[in-house]
């Protein structure tokens, strides 16, 4: 099995606010991420697909195909968008790094038919990221 990883970057705005909590509780839990007009990040997404190279092409999957899937499923949905208001898949969820990574996994998994989605890592900043992989899969080789 070989792992192949493609990286993309997108820029989005968001804020953390739970309407079921009081303004005070929102402030206490989410801090400055609760500022009412939101803020933004440059996100970096790393998507890793696992598979055996095709004996004819030598590829697990064509990177161009992966690039098109990422463009369609992630870039068009999230790049230069407000994650709270413009991404229906995140509706009703706090758009944390954890939740965005999970939504991205759920969007990509059914679209990747050559090889198998192995790992999604989403960086909100260089010092904060979320990892998503199939439960039971070994953490080894995730990077």
């Amino acid at each position, binding site marked *: 099995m070989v792992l192949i990883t493609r990286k993309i970057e997108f820029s989005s705005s968001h804020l953390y606010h739970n309407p079921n909590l009081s303004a005070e509780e929102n402030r206490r839990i989410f801090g400055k991420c609760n500022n009412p007009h939101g803020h933004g990040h440059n996100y970096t997404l790393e998507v890793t697909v696992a598979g055996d190279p095709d004996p004819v092409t030598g590829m697990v999957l064509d990177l161009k195909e992966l690039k098109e899937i990422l463009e369609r499923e992630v870039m068009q949905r999230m790049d230069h968008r407000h994650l709270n208001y413009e991404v229906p898949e995140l509706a009703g*969820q706090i758009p944390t790094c954890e939740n965005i990574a999970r939504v991205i996994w759920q969007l990509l998994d059914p679209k990747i038919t050559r090889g198998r989605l192995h790992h999604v890592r989403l960086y909100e900043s260089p010092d904060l990221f979320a990892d998503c992989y199939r439960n039971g899969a070994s953490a080894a080789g995730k990077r």
Partner: protein
Amino acid sequence: MNSALKLELGRRYRFSASHRLHTTHLTEEENNRVFGKCSNPYGHGHNYVLEVSLSGAVDPAMGMIANLSDLDAFVQRHVLEDFDHKSLNEDVSAFRERVPTTENLCIEIFRRLQSFPKARLERVRVEETAKNSFEYDGSNEEGNRP
């Protein structure tokens, strides 16, 4: 949460510390042979990067595995306060008897962070320089080097 998926939260921290790789179990010659310039008597320092990975259920009200302010405070209290701008050999009791290699540093940090109450500690990863890094996930607890 969809149980077919496993989610982890990763956070990076930085600290600067000095160390010297040297053990009284070896002769001076052997120390020099094994540790090379890392055994120079007055020690040297690194800008370390610590990467902490946690797993657990995403709290639906917060959308988080753990609140970063809780994690930051815990890492600050249990690791950074003791290690940052310190001599690992002289200032950290765990390294009085154990060589402060980055392998052993990973193990020590894992032990200190394991009791984080809000999520499960999956692993720690330490970059000693941009060129080398070490990881520890708590397995093989008994097999640590002296």
